[in-house]
């Protein structure tokens, strides 16, 4: 018994922490007697999607949910169709995504620190982080998004360390999943752009070799991202009232205007007056 513990000590501790993370989140779920308002919106969307199709899910839901990315309502609709129940599916997606945050933090820290114990401590901190723990027990899009982002970072860290294209492929896949939960998942493309600039400057002695490597990685990432997301966006925008998209033209132009004019104060003053 002692031999087995010594051999698998880290794995036992790590999976113990993940199991505890799941248990705490489960416990928190039973503490809350009411569902969040957003949860009710997603439940309605999931049920409408399952019974009347995606058009009804977007057109008959509240205005607030027109811009909701399709992943969570789709999963909840699947739960409704299979008889598992939309609320159960939504809850389990959140609980598992929340518990997997500890695992993702463990892998990141394992690659970043000399001492492997640090990774386990990070997993513990991730498991008990109050705000994350509370949010994991709700049926919302935020925790699955955060979890997918962290797993994309895991793949990114592995990709730059091992210099293998398959990790960039996985990085892109997780970025797609993150974008399907919240459109901010697109930020991961910015992360790759930032890394490319830094990497080119760092390897300026072998710039062409590095450029070739980054171009290959970039092509993989952009292709996976667009191939997976564009058809979904085009279908939803053509056939439903959904306004979700990987690129928000209106928001970007407004942001550009604010940056160039430097007018950040207007909105603040309006809010204060309100």
């Amino acid at each position, binding site marked *: 018994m002692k031999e087995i513990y010594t051999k698998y000590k880290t794995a036992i501790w790590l999976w113990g922490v993940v199991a505890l993370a799941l248990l*705490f989140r489960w416990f928190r779920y039973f*503490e*809350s*007697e*009411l*569902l969040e*308002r957003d949860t*009710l*919106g997603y439940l309605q969307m999931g049920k409408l999607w399952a019974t009347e199709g995606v058009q009804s899910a977007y057109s008959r839901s509240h205005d607030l949910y027109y811009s909701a990315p399709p992943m969570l309502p789709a999963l909840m609709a699947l739960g409704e169709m299979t008889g598992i129940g939309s609320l159960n599916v939504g809850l389990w997606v959140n609980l598992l995504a929340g518990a997997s*945050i500890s695992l993702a*933090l463990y892998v*990141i*820290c394992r*690659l*970043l*620190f*000399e*001492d492997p114990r*640090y990774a386990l*401590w*990070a997993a*513990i*901190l*991730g498991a*008990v*982080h*109050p*705000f*994350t*723990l*509370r*949010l994991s027990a709700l049926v*919302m899009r*935020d925790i699955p998004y*955060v979890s997918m982002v*962290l797993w994309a*970072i895991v793949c*990114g860290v*592995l990709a*730059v*360390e091992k210099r293998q294209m398959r990790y960039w492929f996985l990085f892109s896949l997780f970025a797609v999943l993150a974008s399907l939960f919240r459109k*901010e998942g697109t*930020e991961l493309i*910015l*992360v790759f752009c*930032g*890394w490319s600039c*830094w*990497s080119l400057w760092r390897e300026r002695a072998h710039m062409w070799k590095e450029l070739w490597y980054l171009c290959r990685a970039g092509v993989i990432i952009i292709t996976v991202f667009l191939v997976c997301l564009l058809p979904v966006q085009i279908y939803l925008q053509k056939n439903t009232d959904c306004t979700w998209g990987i690129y928000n033209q209106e928001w970007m132009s*407004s*942001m550009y205007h*604010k*940056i160039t004019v430097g007018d*950040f*104060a*207007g*909105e*603040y*003053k309006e*809010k204060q007056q309100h």
Partner: protein
Amino acid sequence: MIIIKILLAYIGNLLDVSFAILPILLVAAMFGLKSFKKNAALQFFIITAGVFLGWRTLFCFYNGGGISDRYIMILPLLFTVPAVAGIPVLSRWLVRLLAWKNIKVREQTVVWFCLIVISAISLGKALNPPDRKPYVHEIADYLKSHAGDGALMIDATADGGRIVFMGDLKVENRGVSKFSRNHEMFLKEFKAVMADPANAGRRIFLCVRVSSPDEFVTACRTALGGFPFVSRYSSRIKKDTVLLYEKIETPVE
């Protein structure tokens, strides 16, 4: 000046989401930088954290200071990674402090002590039960037994969706602005719903949360020239009262 105010509000939000322990660990981690591997993975991670922090800061300015806690919650999780380096530093300081008092403890023991303390505080905060709203269940029960299918509930509490869900009601829920937040907006929206010919002949319920029910009724009478509603349920929540009114044909003074 406004930019500083926005920035301070943003930092305040960030500290709220992070929970007090994380900033302390981050400060301690500044003294434990040697524990990091100096590799490409670390550089990638720093760039990632920089992009996420920068983008959210930009969004905060774009939004005029208001930013949801849920939107920035990825940042504390990213900062957990460098914060871990602060745990052994804090433990080392504690060991030295105890040694000064002639108490000898192994550093590893202190590390686990720190982790247990952090976990206990965090769990205490996380598992603190949320606010109870018994009126949601009670109003749902009342409507289930008294309101028939097709009734209309004008909801000014923002809990209408929950009431309908909890009671599994076949009642239409129409949300309007809260009275306590903006009287004029509430009265305008309320008036519009009441004047809608589609609602004529329907059973209409009104659910509000107000600090003074008398002030609310007076404001409605003045604005609408009468308040043809009768109270069916009321409950005190902190300093407010939650009320359920039902429309009647003959106004009661």
